[in-house]
């Protein structure tokens, strides 16, 4: 067994992975990844909510534009989108800033990462939320209308709570995609977990040690998120009859 470990270059793993070794770098990368994933997921939800409402209740032009947005984003590889949005985004922001007479704006890596992944997430979130809103029985919304509730209050008090249970599984999936897509930012040189891993691996030549360690960290994130989302789903379904049927 030790022989195998030596062969795989895992011999000095414990030392390499300790916090004073390269373990700290990996954890810092993980923190960056999670920060971006959170931000992108949040931005995606905001875009998705507006997008879903636009697709369902918007005018013809809004609907067509949103259809183009979701189709394009879902057909082009994330890697290509990230490169385009990364360069276009900073160009546009600088042009606007110069146009307003301000100096150029500095865009840090985290903000850029959130922006590019958020735009990608938004397209998927639009579809998830649109489906969820459509699944809310029309009668509930009509009842709220007949009570004279303003549109925003209907959204806040009726539509969103009622659609939650339909949206959670899709959103859980989106969150997992967000965490994994942060790895793509390694290609534009952002120091998230995957790039930190590659730097550590190539500095120490212990490729297996570090790639396996990073894989383990990603897997932990996935599994923990799975547990959290399962609780959220249970909470969102409170008061609803069980889908599984029967008693357990």
């Amino acid at each position, binding site marked *: 067994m030790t022989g195998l470990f030596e062969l795989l270059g895992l011999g000095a793993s414990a030392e390499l992975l300790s916090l004073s070794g390269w373990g700290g770098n990996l954890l810092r990368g993980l923190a960056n990844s999670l920060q971006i994933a959170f*931000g992108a997921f949040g931005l995606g939800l905001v875009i998705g909510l507006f997008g879903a409402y636009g697709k369902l209740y918007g005018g013809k032009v809004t609907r067509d534009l949103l259809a183009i947005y979701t189709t394009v984003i879902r057909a082009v590889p994330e890697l290509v989108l990230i490169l385009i949005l990364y360069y276009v985004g900073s*160009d546009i922001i600088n042009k606007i800033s110069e146009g307003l007479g301000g100096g150029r704006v500095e865009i840090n890596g985290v903000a850029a990462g959130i922006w590019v992944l958020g735009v990608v997430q938004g397209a998927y979130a639009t579809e998830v939320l649109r489906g969820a809103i459509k699944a809310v029985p029309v009668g509930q919304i009509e009842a709220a209308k007949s009570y004279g509730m303003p549109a925003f209050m209907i959204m806040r008090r009726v539509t969103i*709570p009622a659609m939650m249970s339909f949206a959670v599984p899709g959103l859980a999936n989106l969150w997992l995609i967000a965490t994994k897509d942060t790895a793509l930012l390694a*290609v534009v*040189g*952002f120091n998230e977990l995957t790039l930190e891993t590659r730097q550590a691996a190539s500095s120490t030549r212990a490729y297996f040690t570090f790639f396996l360690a990073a894989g383990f960290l990603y897997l932990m994130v996935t599994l923990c998120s799975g547990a959290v989302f399962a609780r959220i789903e249970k909470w969102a379904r409170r008061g609803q009859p069980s889908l599984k049927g029967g008693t357990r």
Partner: protein
Amino acid sequence: MKLKALLAAATAAAALTAGAAAAEQVKIGIAAEPYPPFASLDNSGNWVGWEVEVIGAVCAAAELDCVITPVAWDGIIPSLTGQQIDAIMASMSITEERMKTIDFSDPYYNTPAVIVADKSMDIDATPESLAGKIVGIQASTIHQAYAQEYFKDAELKVYQTQDEANQDLFAGRIDATQADSIAMADFVGSDTGSCCEIKGAVADDPAILGRGVGAGVRKGDDALREALNKGIAAILADGTHEKITAKYFTTSIY
């Protein structure tokens, strides 16, 4: 849901405004991928190496407030023109082709390009001996441009970083690699590089290989270019350049 959406909106807004602060700082772009012994990350997350020290010395001499900003190498010129960074100091050679897009300061180091291959391999740095061989090169470098021009009969494999090419040379997936002599001297002296040796320098072509490594700046950004020139001249004159070089190399690289 509401809370989450609000939080998300706040995060997004914060992210967009966060960048606006910190004027006057000069962002020096280096390659995010390690390039020892010039620039690499140590295990506490700091950038170290010859070039990193030179950047510090040049900025101090030119009285610039510099921050080192890692950017993906193959997107480093777009990052400069797109204003994500203000200058490139990433072992970038001054070439005609790049001068069409960006300006350069005076050179701060200069080394020849060499071919490295397995010790048992009987080749030298000529196009004839590399014909039919697999040659690994780093993307967007003078070496890629040179190999595409001169080693037309070789199979070229393009890597994002020289480090990956070195790794594949060690693994035997490529027969040879063309790169900078100093970086390669460092590599063949290391454990993984013990397989290989420097087979010789390639025939010079100044039009492609350029005339030394300089700091790249946006076209027309003469203030910064001149400040950097001043800094480079100062560290060359007062011996700082030499002192840093002595820490890493046995011979002068200017």
